[in-house]
């Protein structure tokens, strides 16, 4: 069963320079209880996808079309008041930068307790206990004292643990983690990834890892959605993505250095496209080594190629001898 189904979602930003099509007709679904990787470079629409699902797209952005079904319910027609019942309680989000997403003026106990008091209608003493319990879940050392400390008193890794605890306070079913380890050192990153894996397993949550690191995806995720310039390039189980990838994914995998081997790096020419005036047809065509005339002219559709693998490419079948 799918916990979330996104269909033909369009989120545009109406800027002075023009309309930025941050998400242009994207569709994907997330199986319940799984870990899904949402992969892409900056500007591909990873973060906007999470913001759209929670309906917290910042101005001048607006969801202009499509639907988002959470456990069968369409979230887009819901009123603001109704959305509050979803945010944090059913769908939650860990922000990219733990330093800027914690309020420096309040203690950890105050800012986390506030959420519990507001949403769960608990008494103060109960709220305190609940916060300590959740901080323990995120393996923050000495939570009884930590609730009296301010964010600046913690290191980056510890702040991220606090942010994870905050996202878990209301026991959400679906958790988006937006680049949760990008600002952390590798050894701390390993600690946070281990924690997220444990939490997903123990709490039976559905976890969406938003990342640009294919290594993290390979390590954590069962399913992958690859985004590029506001379009879904491919969706599939992790093995398929690595074995028979979309030309973009293939190019990306060849362009990243690997620690376990030395190889000739094959770089992707050109730059990430400008979304105000995106390329015609397939958005990756100007940088794609396999691009032909048709890629320039026609937008490819997301095609089912079996085993739950969907690819948006005119030439994939031909390139993989499946034609």
């Amino acid at each position, binding site marked *: 069963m799918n916990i979330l189904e996104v269909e033909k979602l369009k989120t545009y930003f109406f800027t002075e320079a023009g309309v930025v099509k941050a998400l242009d007709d994207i569709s994907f679904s997330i199986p319940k209880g799984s870990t899904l990787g949402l992969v892409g470079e900056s500007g591909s629409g990873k973060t906007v996808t999470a913001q759209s699902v929670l309906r917290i797209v910042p101005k001048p952005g607006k969801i202009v079309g499509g639907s988002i079904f959470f456990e069968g319910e369409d979230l887009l027609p819901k009123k603001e008041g109704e959305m509050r019942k979803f945010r944090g309680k059913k769908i939650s989000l860990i922000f990219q930068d733990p330093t800027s997403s914690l309020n420096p003026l309040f203690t950890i106990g105050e800012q986390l307790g506030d959420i519990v008091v507001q949403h769960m209608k608990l008494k103060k003493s109960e709220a305190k206990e609940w916060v300590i319990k959740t901080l323990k879940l995120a393996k923050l050392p000495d939570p009884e004292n930590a609730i009296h400390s301010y964010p600046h008193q913690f290191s980056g890794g510890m702040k991220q643990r606090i942010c994870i605890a905050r996202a878990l306070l209301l026991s959400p079913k679906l958790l988006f983690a937006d680049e949760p380890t990008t600002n952390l050192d590798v050894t701390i990153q390993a*600690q946070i990834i281990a924690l997220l894996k444990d939490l997903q397993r123990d709490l039976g949550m559905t976890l969406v890892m938003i990342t640009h690191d*294919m290594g993290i995806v390979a390590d954590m995720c069962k399913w992958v959605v690859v985004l590029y310039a506001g379009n879904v390039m491919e969706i599939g189980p992790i093995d398929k993505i690595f074995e028979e990838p979309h030309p973009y994914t293939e190019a990306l995998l060849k362009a990243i250095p690997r620690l376990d081997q030395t190889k000739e790096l094959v770089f*992707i020419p050109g730059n990430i496209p400008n979304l105000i005036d995106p390329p015609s047809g397939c958005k990756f065509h100007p940088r794609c080594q396999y691009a032909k005339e048709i890629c320039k002219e026609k937008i490819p559709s997301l095609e089912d190629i079996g085993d739950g693998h969907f690819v948006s490419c005119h030439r994939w079948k031909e390139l993989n001898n499946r034609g």
Partner: protein
Amino acid sequence: MAPLLEVKDLVKYFPTYSRGIFRKKIVGNVHAVDGISFSVNESEIVGLVGESGCGKTTTGKLILYLERPTKGEILFDGKNAIEIFENGSKEEKMELRRSMQMVFQNPYASLDPRMTVFDIISEPFKIHKHVPRNEWKERVYKLLELVGLEPYHAERYPHEFSGGQRQRICIARAIAVEPRFIIADEPVSSLDVSIRAQILKLIMDLQHRLGVSYLYISHDLSSVRQISQRVMVMYLGEIVEAAPTDELFDHSIHPYTRALISAVPIPDPKRKMNIILLPGEVPSAINPPSGCRFHPRCRYATSECKEEKPSFVEVDKDHYVSCHHYAEFA
């Protein structure tokens, strides 16, 4: 052959002061770099890896005398660099500055937004006067071509470029003075994954074409493996292990290097990760741990590690490690 750059027992302490408006009292020292020695050969790329706060960037700044070393010796091409920067004549200083350049981490902050690309790249000509005025244009175009940009880019301003292109401009500016040695401080970490390979290739390309040596400072072990001939691993101001690249990644000895390598996710779903999780975090550099600085987080630590500082020994050809128990891990 003598190495191009030789660093001996380099030390940098940053004093920390007590609070108070009128009286400043030194209450401690941040041991940013604590007695490191290494060398870089002609047209060689040496990688310097470590986590944030381990002293990588400070090391780079000390070599260029952007920070004043507390102690130690830096020999560039056999000449005492610190001595020249402190007491040398203007000509000597300029000559040394010309031979060592730096490429910074963030190309969004290291280019003046009010200068055109032409002005940025030709500014070194103005300072060092090694190119006559009538050849500037030709030289700038040649440099742009060398870093993979077009002549018409010269008239533009930095904001018109993407991150990868900006980093190319920074590299063009660095090589405008024909340096022999470049310190590249995390040159790709602020770029997108699909762009990083382009810049790494450019760095390697310039190494081959111009014979430049690099100190490549990074926390990203994968790119270090890709680009360097030799690698040094730093922890809390000290070098704990140094070896030729493949030797270091395939036969690492120091427990910290091993943990660091194990923690890097590998883009291959079939490969099982076998992460060595390190407990806790990097301790404060104000009061670094006694003995081996890694001992509070090391699972093999013994009382010897707590009390005595391990020496930096050569365990194999060009493979140095600073660990009491290296024989057990080799």
